[in-house]
């Protein structure tokens, strides 16, 4: 047993580059990216889903994000997708089911396209800029503040957990799959949670003392320029076109 990491490269590791995606105003980028993903989910044809994937990948590469970076972000969905591929292809035994295979391929393409769009969306500005864009989207302020605070405290609790693990190791604790290990990690979990609960009281007092009333101050929103709108229109038009072609509607 052990404690993992909030691993992988940070999503904003390449936020410092300069490209059309990096220059795109984050609020419009969020809206356009979300619409694109919804459109992709609607697709039923394999070639059109492949085209959507191609477009998304093209966007990521044109922004200068490395292919390795994108592939690293795929790691999270791959276990599920490979399990699905194997069970859909072999679930009925041999021979392989062609319909199952093409369905699995469609689902995989859509899932990978969605991740690619999210990388294009999230990887092209610092996370901080993304949070402040969200604050300017007129979302309910309290849950948004909660999201930001949660993010802030992740790293503190992670360090706490790692420190606890080091002190366990320093006391010659060898984790295994036995009762003692489960007890140690169960009680460690309880302690971290209690610590968080107690700390939240202090954090609340400190925040109230500084005038917190539920809304964190965010800087002024970036102005929306014509180029931002044009990029939004083009990406939405692209996905609408794909969906229209998919449904076989006359254009």
């Amino acid at each position, binding site marked *: 047993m052990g404690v*993992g990491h909030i691993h992988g490269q940070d999503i904003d590791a390449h936020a410092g580059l300069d490209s059309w995606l990096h220059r795109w105003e984050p609020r419009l980028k969020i809206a356009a990216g979300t619409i694109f993903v919804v459109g992709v989910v609607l697709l039923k044809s394999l070639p059109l889903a492949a085209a959507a994937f191609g477009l998304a990948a093209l966007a990521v590469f044109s922004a200068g994000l490395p292919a390795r970076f994108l592939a690293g972000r795929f790691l999270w969905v791959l276990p599920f997708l490979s*399990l699905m591929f194997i069970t*859909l292809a072999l679930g009925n035994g041999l021979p392989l089911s062609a319909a*199952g295979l093409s369905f699995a391929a469609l689902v995989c393409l859509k*899932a990978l396209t969605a991740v690619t769009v999210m990388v294009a969306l999230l990887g092209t500005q610092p*996370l901080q800029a993304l949070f402040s864009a969200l604050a300017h989207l007129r979302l309910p302020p309290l849950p948004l503040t*909660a999201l930001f605070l949660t993010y802030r405290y992740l790293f503190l*609790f992670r360090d706490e957990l790692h420190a606890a693990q080091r002190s366990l190791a320093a006391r010659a604790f060898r984790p295994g799959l036995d009762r003692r290990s489960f007890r140690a990690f169960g*009680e460690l*979990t309880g302690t971290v949670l209690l610590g968080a609960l107690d700390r939240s009281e202090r954090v609340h007092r400190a925040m109230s003392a500084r005038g917190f009333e539920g809304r964190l101050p965010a800087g002024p929103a970036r102005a929306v320029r014509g180029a931002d709108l044009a990029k939004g229109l083009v990406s939405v038009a692209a996905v609408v076109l794909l969906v229209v072609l998919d449904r076989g509607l006359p254009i």
Partner: protein
Amino acid sequence: MHIADGVLSVPVVGAAAVAAGGLLWYSARGLKAEDVPRISLLAGAFFVSSLIRVPVGVTSVHPVLLGLTGVFLGRRAPLAVFLGLLLQALLFQHGGLTTLGANLLIMGVPALLAGLAFPVLRRVPPALRGALGGGLAVVLAVAVMVFFLVLSAEYYLNGPFSLVYVLSAAYLPVLAVEAALTGFAVRLLQRVRPELVGSGRRS
């Protein structure tokens, strides 16, 4: 426990999003500024606790701690689950955008129910109560997930080694880990903060 974009059919995605909106509304209703630090810090702590890795054969599983989320946060548990899902999407692109609603139901409903079940079970010894709450929350979460998959495409239920069967079997180690960790955690809480895991004050 995450369903990626494209896996569920469009009607299921839509219906789940609407239902999840309702759950979120119930969970966030009457939210005040003073509740925000508690929910956020606990959501962060739960997020980080799922970094604990337990090796099982060639792979490893991590606890989800749905039962404990319900115990600590009560009615606010689905909101905390939602924060965790959003952060996973933001930081790792894990979980999907269109399936946020489905994923919230998969994990938020069991957490909420586990929180409600705890005071009812207060006569059960704490370790067993924790193991039951933690274990049943996972069973329920897998059941909701299977429900969505089966509704979405018949392929997922095709044949003796269908995705649904294999997936359910894959969650057995998670069930065991979750039950064991929650059991020990609740036993500790019973000793140091009994009002949290049974009767008494609950915010």
